[in-house]
């Protein structure tokens, strides 16, 4: 009996293999965990902590004296050396009080200055009848000017030099008047901005043709314009240690999960950077897993997309100076959804969406499958196709992995070049690159015509993905898939696919599992993954975001 049992105990080589199978993934996990931690802790170390951002010195941060000449000269000393800071001095009519306006050329609204500052002060001035009351004291003069002579909506007063200089530099106009303690700050920045245009990276056939611009106020307005709604909250934050930028966190007060909002707030407060140039900075600073190839926040230029996400209980982040808003938490299915799915009727919407899933699979795996079929599994190709492939591959000098790499890399180069090429010659170069190089490569016998089809289908497929950053992810992973296919064939491709699945299952975006609602399994939310159910069926907001108010009809 013992000999029978013993015969079932595997040899030590098998045991070692089993051990390796257990240990290697754990080691890999530990390695990645270590790298991630090293990066994060390195970021938090904060070398500048000891000396907080250098502010204007106390000498300059003092209050204004109220004496016109000293104040004006200290303003000049603080910012007057800038080439774009202009100081215009004049006299207020009816009095002998001198006044000066300080503004930044190109940033302040010169029209407002001319018509609403200089005109009333210089031309109308203080009539004789009012002189008594106005000139009685510094306060009364200040009140008189504010109440009678400045027909503008945005009007602030300050008596601090630092605030004055800062406000002037972001586009406000400062008005100093002789005999007044404080300073008027008028208007807001009226820098040159782009008009509202159709979003370039997210074009739709059907749907609003409006995209965000670089101006935060306009973007907030665009969001508000999407619909009158009191529960839309936009709370403002300031990010950037050196260059300050406004940032808006938008959410629906009675829909979004308050814990999610809190988490967003706390992560934003931990942002430490001199200048977030674009919302991509924010994205990278608050995302969960910096080693993942998958985007964990979605960026979009479309206000309608943002509003739709907010109504699902998500949170949006808008940053001044960029047309790209961030939506979070992001789940995998969002990367393959387009607003158009919802604008069209549900049958075409579902069809297009299924098509997109298929295209995503193709974009990820088509060249890898080609390599494994050609190099490892000739038996898996239908006989007649196998024959024609053999015939066309006669004389191709490279193994399929090299062949596919050549083509894929050149098509990636073409695509990258296509972005940079000047518009007039872009299409021409595309034709030269795509058609001529492809055809010539086949004729020269470097690649087989079948591969050209595979590469073309792959390239086209990757353009069907509505979110550009998700497309990049698939393009990167495609190369990994190709290399593994070259080493292990279909077996490797399947292993690679499983590896990605493992990663996706573990990945979270702001506490929401990335593959939600596939995993954790929640069939009620499946109405909006592969198919887009009729709107009358989608009565409930996605449960995965734990909305306060689950019913969409409210």
């Amino acid at each position: 009996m013992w000999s029978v049992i013993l015969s079932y105990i595997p040899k030590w080589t098998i045991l070692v293999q089993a051990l390796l199978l257990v240990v290697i993934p754990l080691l890999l996990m530990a390695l990645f965990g270590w790298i991630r931690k090293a990066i994060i802790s390195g970021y938090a170390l904060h070398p500048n902590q000891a000396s907080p951002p250098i502010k204007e010195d106390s000498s300059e941060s003092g209050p204004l004296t109220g004496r016109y000449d000293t104040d004006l000269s200290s303003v000049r000393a603080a910012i007057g050396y800038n080439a774009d800071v202009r100081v215009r001095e004049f006299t207020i009519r009816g009095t002998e009080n001198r006044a000066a306006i300080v503004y930044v050329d190109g940033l302040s609204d010169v029209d407002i200055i001319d018509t609403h500052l200089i005109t009333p002060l210089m031309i109308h001035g203080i009539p004789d009848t009012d002189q008594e009351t106005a000139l009685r004291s510094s306060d009364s003069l200040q009140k008189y000017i504010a109440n009678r002579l400045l027909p503008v909506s945005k009007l602030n007063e300050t008596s601090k030099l630092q605030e004055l200089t800062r406000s002037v530099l972001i586009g406000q106009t400062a008005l100093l008047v002789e005999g007044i303690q404080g300073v008027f700050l008028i208007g807001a920045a009226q820098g040159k901005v782009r008009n509202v245009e159709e979003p370039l990276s997210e074009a739709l056939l059907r749907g609003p043709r409006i995209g965000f611009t670089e101006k935060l106020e306009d973007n907030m307005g665009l969001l508000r314009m999407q619909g009158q709604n009191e529960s839309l909250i936009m709370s403002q934050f300031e990010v950037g240690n050196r260059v300050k930028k406004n940032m808006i966190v938008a959410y629906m007060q009675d829909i979004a999960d308050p814990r999610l909002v809190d988490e967003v707030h706390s992560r934003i407060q931990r942002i430490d950077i001199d200048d977030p140039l674009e919302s991509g900075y924010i994205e990278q600073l608050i995302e969960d897993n910096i080693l993942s190839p998958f985007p964990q926040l979605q960026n979009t230029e479309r206000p309608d997309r943002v509003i739709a996400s907010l109504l699902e209980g998500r949170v949006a982040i808008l940053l001044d100076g960029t047309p790209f808003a961030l939506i979070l938490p992001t789940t995998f299915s969002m990367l393959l959804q387009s607003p158009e799915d919802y604008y069209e009727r549900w049958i075409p919407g579902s069809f297009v969406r299924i098509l997109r899933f298929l295209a995503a699979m193709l974009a990820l795996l088509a060249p890898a499958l080609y390599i494994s079929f050609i190099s490892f599994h000739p038996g898996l190709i239908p006989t007649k196709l196998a024959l024609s492939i053999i015939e066309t591959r006669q004389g191709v000098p490279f193994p399929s992995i090299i062949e596919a790499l050549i083509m894929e890399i050149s098509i990636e180069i073409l695509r990258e070049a296509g972005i940079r090429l000047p518009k007039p010659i872009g299409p021409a170069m595309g034709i030269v690159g795509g058609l001529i190089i492809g055809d010539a490569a086949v004729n020269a016998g470097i690649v087989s015509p079948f591969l050209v089809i595979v590469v073309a289908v792959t390239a086209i497929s990757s353009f069907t993905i509505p979110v550009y950053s998700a497309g990049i992810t698939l393009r990167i992973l495609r190369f990994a898939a190709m290399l593994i296919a070259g080493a292990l064939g279909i077996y490797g491709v399947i292993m690679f696919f499983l590896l990605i699945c493992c990663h996706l299952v573990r990945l979270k975006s702001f506490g929401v599992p990335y593959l939600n609602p596939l995993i954790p399994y929640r069939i009620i939310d499946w109405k909006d993954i592969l198919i887009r159910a009729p709107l009358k069926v989608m009565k409930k907001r996605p449960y995965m975001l734990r909305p306060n108010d689950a019913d969409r009809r409210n």
Partner: protein
Amino acid sequence: MSRHVRRVLLAAASLLLLISTGCWSANEIEDVTVSIGLGLDTAKESAFEKEINEQGAHYPKENVITATIQIIPPINAKKGGQGGGGGGGGGGSSPSSEKAYLNEQLTGDSVIQIFRQFSLRRDRPIIGHHLKVIVVARELAQKYSLEQIFDFILRDNEIRPSCLVVVSHRSALEALSSEEPGEIPALYLLGVVNNRYRSNKILPPVSLIKLDSAMQSGASFLLQNVVTAKDEHKFSGAAIIKGDTKRWIGELTQYDIEGLSWIKGDVVGGALKTYASRGSYTIAYEPETSKASIIPEVSGDDISFHIKIKTEGSLIEDWSFPEVPSSPQYIHELEGQFEEEIKKQIRQVLHKMQKVYHVDVGGFGEQLKFKYPKRWRKLKERWEDIFSHVPITYDVNVTIKDVASSTD
């Protein structure tokens, strides 16, 4: 810092370990040869083999079997517009360069050894994934049991179980040869099997897996027979493989096959021709559906079978002149004629099965097994002897649904 460097080096080294394994089992598709057909004959050395044997190129073997492997595309496949890849094909029997295939023959006493022996002759090794047709010569199947012949083929991992098996009346090499330019005989054989919807003279295709299960069950079975003449082929009749020896014992004609297809109730097309009773002119019936049930009856020790056959179709040809109008009586009369013809076919095939070859290839034993399993267990061992003496009755019901597009 050096700790970091060491760690990076370690990671790089382990990555290298992964990469340097390379593509260890890769074999590019253009570096292999696809075998699409396999013919098995009794040993007959080709001229090529004789010549190389004279030069001492032989190894210890007995000459038992000659395997013909049909490979495509042949070496020097026509490329682009340039016609034919000059020179005689390496094979013993393909002088014409227009052919889309190449037959290679080797002789030996082990199928796997013969297969591997091809690697000495071809720069691109042969793969079996795309093997579509296996042709066994009648002579070989008579001499050796199919279990012996097919042992390697059934064990092999490369060859698919969906591969078609047929028997050739003459040599398998002939069945795998063709004079027509561009035609691949293996694919041709595969295509003909699909014509069952046009003719009930073709057996349902027997794939390797079906052959395996038939051999396991121990019952006798049929394999499609291919006759050849002047490198042209025709499916005709079937080879009978005896259940206990798994050897070829005889053939059914195509007329028998027709009768058998009525018994099995799997007629989906074809033409039934007979002569009208009035003026003995030709009439033909095209069946659309057919149904048959074999009903075993056991009373005491006596076993008998009754076959009920029902078929519907149309009157498709009528040589009456002057034309007889298709009145209900006339149609009814014709139905009787067709029933007679079907009965005649059944009578003949039953005679062959019971009296000539003593084999049950109509599925009678199976029905008995389903209905009377206990009885069957007792009879199983000597079923085919018993079957030879079992009375079988049958009734046939032909319904002519329509007269096709005839206007009268």
